């Protein structure tokens, strides 16, 4: 870890878009990233895409992480992409997605602009390392 990074903590927004109420994973990842030295803002359930983009802006985060277990990840990510674009955050923040995401959908998510997909079962260290590698110190 570089010295600069120790001075400036990476800021992460973890959000639950849509209506899915399964938040164990989102909260576990939030805690794991905190333990990895990041600042984490967790939005709580049922966030509209616009609300997620707004929170990302207001909190000036480096990373936006979405957790979806309902299977609605593709349509929800399309809407979140639009909302991030509207706030000129798309491409500026690191965008990651986790949850019940079948492998067959990973390519489509990447094509949408998702930087990393971490399906259920991914070790937390892998997510933390991915963020630390990608977010400029």
């Amino acid at each position, binding site marked *: 870890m570089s010295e600069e990074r120790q001075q400036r903590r990476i800021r992460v927004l973890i959000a639950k878009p849509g209506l899915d*109420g399964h938040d164990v994973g989102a*909260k576990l990842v939030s805690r794991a990233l*905190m333990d990895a030295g990041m600042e984490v803002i967790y939005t709580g359930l049922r966030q509209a895409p616009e609300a997620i983009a707004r929170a990302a802006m207001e909190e000036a985060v480096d990373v936006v992480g979405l957790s979806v277990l309902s299977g*609605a990840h593709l349509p929800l990510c399309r809407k979140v992409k639009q909302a991030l674009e509207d706030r000129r955050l798309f491409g500026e923040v690191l965008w990651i997605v986790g949850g019940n995401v079948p*492998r067959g959908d990973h390519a489509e998510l990447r094509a949408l602009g998702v930087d990393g997909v971490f399906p259920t079962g991914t070790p937390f260290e892998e997510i933390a390392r991915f963020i630390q590698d990608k977010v400029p110190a």
Partner: protein
Amino acid sequence: MPPLFWESGLEVKPVYTATDLEASGGTGRIGLPGEYPFTRGIHPQMYRRRPFTMRQYSGFGTAAETHERFLYLIKHGQTGLNVAFDLPTQCGLDSDDPMAEAEVGRVGMAVDSLADMEEAFADIDLNEITVSLTINGAAVPIMAMYFAMARKRGFELASLRGTAQNDILKEFIGRGTWIFPVEPSIKLIGDTMEYCAKNVPKYSPVSVCGYHVRESGANPAQEMAYGLAIACAYLDHALARGLDANRVARGITFNFDIHGNLWEQVAKFRAGRRLWARLLRERYGVDDPRAMQLRMIAGGGGGGLTIQQPENNIVRGAYYALASALSGTQTMALCSYDEAYTIPSEHAARLSLRTMQILIHEVGLCDTVDPLAGSYFVESTTNEMERRIEALMAELDAQGGIVKGVAEGRVQAAVNRQAYELERKLHSGEIKKVGVNVYEEEEEEREVELHPYRETEARRQVERLNRVRRERDGAAADRLLERVRQAARAGENVMPSVIDAVEAYATVGEVCAVLREVYGTYQEPVRF
């Protein structure tokens, strides 16, 4: 030899003897099956008289598609139905709500109006096949629709059986389909309890779900302790409204989770059954033995299943079913082996059903009641588990009770911390999981038959909703919704007015919008 602990914290010895059993509290409170304190089960002859009900959780797409799956399951020998609703329905939103987009019919059946309820259960004999509605935040309009549908079909409410999940406290702790703030949510559950006690006496308006608390990270002892504490909270509320404890307690059933150590599950259920009976008798003065019986669905939980090597989940499911039968459950359901990926395919759902049928017909699980009774080990750990659950409940009470703990977010935070701890232990290998942290394999990209989500069905549901709105007597629906508003404002029981409104084809979203106006919306306390 290093000491061995169960997830619940109980230390397990390598050998149990009569001395251990005596030291744990002895055999004095085992009793007989069907008799207080029901350690050995709630019926004298249990599965010899009638095997457990098989009730797989199912529902997706529109009512028409779900109806087809129901018929399929019944044809293959399923003896009850357990209805899955989609997320908009569970959150009290109509299918055309902007928040419902992309979610209609995805994880369960979409229900907007009575028309959907009618179609889902068409031609199914509701006396023969009992129906369990997995609905919580939106339980009031959905139960109202179920009763309206049954009545319209000619079934007497006075003899109608069935169950609604209707446990909002665990939704705040784990599953997240809340709508209203904590206090009015409990008031609404009280409305359903009161309505059923007076009008649908054989119906269980509440099925308390330790299941989802466990799935959120609680250990088995906590699962039972939180479950019983939640049941007490609803009972306290009902009694404060002047309802009769004997009557109301008969309407409370339970839904518990099975995964992990088999013996720990058995001890949890036998201890929980005994403790619940004692609580009702000693704390609530209940004297009707039927009201003291802990009736439950106990099924194989998704939390035990893995994405890795999914066929292993078939084996796990069979062991969970075994644990459930050895624990004296009334109803069983198993998460299917593909459930870590998708909602179950027809093939996977049938395999779960066959697993339970093999237990009934081939393995001898129904031969005799509570076959583990009298074992030094099982009775010792049952005694110890009972003490542990009771201590956890006392701790909750000392902190101001479960309702306050949930409203302040403390219970959620405690469960989350535990989930994190469990995850850490899985990661370090302290807890073993086959295919995950031992015997891992490089797995090929596998073709999993995923249940398809059909946009066309979602569009059809919205069209159907529009047609219902067009064809109903709009003025009557408005007038009846206004009556719901007045009842809610006046603090009256809203069930009668909601039943009238849904009979006039007022929708789930419309009823919930009125209730939201009066009660407000829950604000999630986010704590770590």
